[in-house]
């Protein structure tokens, strides 16, 4: 009984019906009884290892899309074309022409590259750089003056989390970290990349990072989504149920700033700041390597790369300027 009786199910485009309705590629149940010769069923398990080297080894940068916007104030003419093109107000500009003050917030960026396409002077470039996670939200914001020099007068970056706390986290958890994922109203794009951490390609468990079913078992909460009204209470309860000491990893533009949803009355605009040690991971969604980096940053096993919104001068082996 094909087509369920809807009026057009009789093929009206002059095609043989079998061709359109049956799926020759659909495997049949009868096949399971055939004694097929043993065949190669496993490209990943018994075949060559597909787990990527990162973070212990280098990331496969050449295969990554260049999506992270990077702004060079030296060639910026302050046209404001980027700010007009940006869908999430991640770039804002005050004034025009040289001397205009530009603000680029990686915490609100959805990595769409519209600003790069819009910029008439080439001051904005898309680069392959994903180690964007930071311990303090302030470090996500670049403040530039059009026509000025890069990092001309950066305010000192102060780490909100004291060295003592960082060392304690590292001592307690770096061998084995139990993470509880909480979706606080995400679009589920972030969930795809969080689940990818369990795929053979990323295999977070090899690094001692595993996802647990209950906050009672967790050392850290991984929060995605803009914290909408309907999940506020559930997020708070999950947080309260997680035993101390604990820390937060906030993943995605939504969790940091509300992302695409920041203007809605139904969302809080991200995870509210708390006293808990936190790591903020830009991305929409952050790619799995970016999440692995964030965990290692939280565990004190790598240095923070992004400071005052400035990318390190060398990105992917090539100089930014």
């Amino acid at each position, binding site marked *: 009984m*094909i087509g369920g009786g809807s009026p057009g199910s009789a093929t009206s485009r002059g095609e043989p019906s079998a061709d359109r309705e049956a799926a020759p590629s659909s*495997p049949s149940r009868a096949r399971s009884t055939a004694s097929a010769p043993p065949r190669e069923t496993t*490209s990943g398990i018994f075949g060559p290892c597909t787990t990527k080297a990162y973070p212990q080894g280098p990331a496969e940068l050449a295969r990554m899309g260049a999506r992270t916007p990077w702004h060079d104030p030296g060639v910026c003419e302050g046209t404001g074309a980027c700010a007009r093109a940006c869908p999430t107000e991640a770039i804002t500009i005050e004034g025009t022409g040289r001397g205009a003050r530009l603000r680029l917030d990686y915490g609100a960026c959805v990595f769409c590259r519209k600003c790069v396409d819009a910029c008439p002077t080439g001051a904005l470039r898309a680069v392959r750089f994903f180690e964007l996670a930071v311990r303090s939200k302030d470090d996500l914001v670049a403040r530039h003056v059009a026509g000025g020099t890069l990092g001309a007068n950066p305010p000192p970056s102060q780490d909100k989390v004291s060295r003592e706390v960082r060392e304690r986290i590292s001592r307690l958890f770096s061998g084995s970290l139990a993470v509880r994922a909480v979706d606080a109203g*995400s679009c589920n794009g*972030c969930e795809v990349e969080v689940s990818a951490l369990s795929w053979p*390609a990323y295999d977070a468990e090899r690094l001692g990072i595993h996802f647990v079913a209950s*906050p009672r078992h967790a050392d850290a909460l991984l929060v995605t989504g803009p914290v909408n009204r*309907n999940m506020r209470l559930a997020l708070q309860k999950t947080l309260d149920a997680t035993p101390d000491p604990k820390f937060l990893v906030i993943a995605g533009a939504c969790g940091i700033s509300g992302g695409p949803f920041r203007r*809605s009355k139904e969302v809080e605009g991200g995870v509210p700041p708390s006293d808990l040690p936190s790591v903020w991971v830009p991305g929409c*969604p952050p790619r799995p390597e970016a999440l692995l980096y964030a965990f290692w940053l939280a565990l004190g096993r790598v240095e923070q790369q992004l400071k005052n919104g400035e990318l390190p001068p060398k990105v992917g082996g090539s100089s930014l300027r």
Partner: protein
Amino acid sequence: MSAGAPDHGSEAPLLSATRSQGERTAPPPRSQVEVPGARDERKWVAAARGGPTLEEAEEGPWEVVVALERWRPSVLSLVHALRFRLATLWGENAHGGDVEVHGIFLGGAECRGVHLRVDLPGAARKLPSLLPDLPTALYFERELSEMFGVTILASPDTRPLLLHERHTAPPMLPAGGEPTGVRAPFGFPRTEGEGVYEVPVGPVHAGVIEPGHFRFQVRGEEILNLEVRLGYAHKGTERLFEGLEPSQATVLAESISGDMSVAGATAYALAVEDVLGVPVPPAAQTARGLLLELERAAFLMGDVAGIILDVGYAAGAAEANVLREQAYGTLELLTGSRLGRGAVVPGGLARPVPAEARVDVERSLDAVRRGLAGLVDHVHDQPSIMDRLRGTGVISLEVAEALGMVGPAARASGLVRDVRRDRPYGPYVHERVRVRVASRSEGDVEARFEVKVAEVLEACRLARHFLGEGGPATGPLISSRSARPRHGLGIVESPRGEFLVALRPSEPAKKVLARVHVRDPSFLNWPAIEYAVRGNIVPDFPLCNKSLNLSYSGFDR
């Protein structure tokens, strides 16, 4: 296990629906109205209007206005006599505080469909319910009621749907109510009797899963009833489109259901192109086809992996996830984004797909196709896996039809609808593109597994086809034309099924969006899980759930 589970004893070849449906009730009699040739959509509308139902007034090519007292009979006649199905229903603000209710009804192949509208005067805003005759309407009516303050007359279920807090006013009205922080009551049905107990689950689930609440009533291990409460991922997204320029809202369309970003962006782009009359270069259409099929392959590989994992075969699931990663890596190669975000924009593509990626893409598609075929052969040989899938979580054709289900889940129950075939759009319009639609009739987890496997293989085949046709393609800038219908409609076969966007730009300049309505396929499919689990055991719930893979965010928006 379910007493009504189909008999799986025989090993008949089951390429498509060949198993008898048992005592199916006869379908309702076909229309008394003469059904015109499926090609001529104008005649469809004329038949609908000349039939026993619709008023004369008509605005634009497809928007038909009916008087309030004719709403219910018109809709029911469209659905029951003319065999249209309700695809979506949404509200809009009109002048003077009135609310317009719009409905899209789609037929089968080659019929553009009927667009009905009924105006509700601001003073009363009352609409007679379409229930119990049209079960599909329930969620739409509940949303209309809470979002626009429409009183649904004689509705059997007036509970809120997406809003958990009381609002100062219905949030979609022009003034826009605010959440008050006071939780609105929500009653769950109770089941009583000896040994009956309740299992509440969620909204925070035990894995990397979206938020939602399930209330099971269970006796022993058998599930007597399940009620799903959603809305936990509600973000008021539809409202956020309003006032934006069409080119700025793509990220919102991608964030309805982020795991179907390409499909969401494409449906949105088609709707914008439809209403503004934007031409899309053929090469961009082909490239969209490539991205859509790659996304489908990656997405459905995840379902295959999830089903294998939920029977406890971790090595097989890992194998499937190796292939899934391959598909996402390919999408990144083509678009720069693993989920294909930012690639599709109104007018075409944001940037051309790189021609030099071709060889790599071909190799990946072959690897996915070969890897999956091998894995599935292997899985078929494991009786301990197949036994768990067979007869579990059955959704009958009657239920699927009554709920208006779409996508692979519907096709696994013998309800064969696929937008790519029935209402070809963009890349699928070309006559050389023949989509081979997989289907089964059993409606159990195994049927959904097999359909999804077949669809990954078919998606790889189609992607290869589009790759061969492809070329560099970026779109022109948007320019508006005046003589168009008020609304644009974009309908795409996403990995979960029919994804629909209806939008209206502001008048007269059409520069910004006035109203955007998005209907994710999961909005239609969610109730099916409540039927699928009945009579099953609690430990099989994850299997039922994974085989349907419903989107919470897509439903809640």
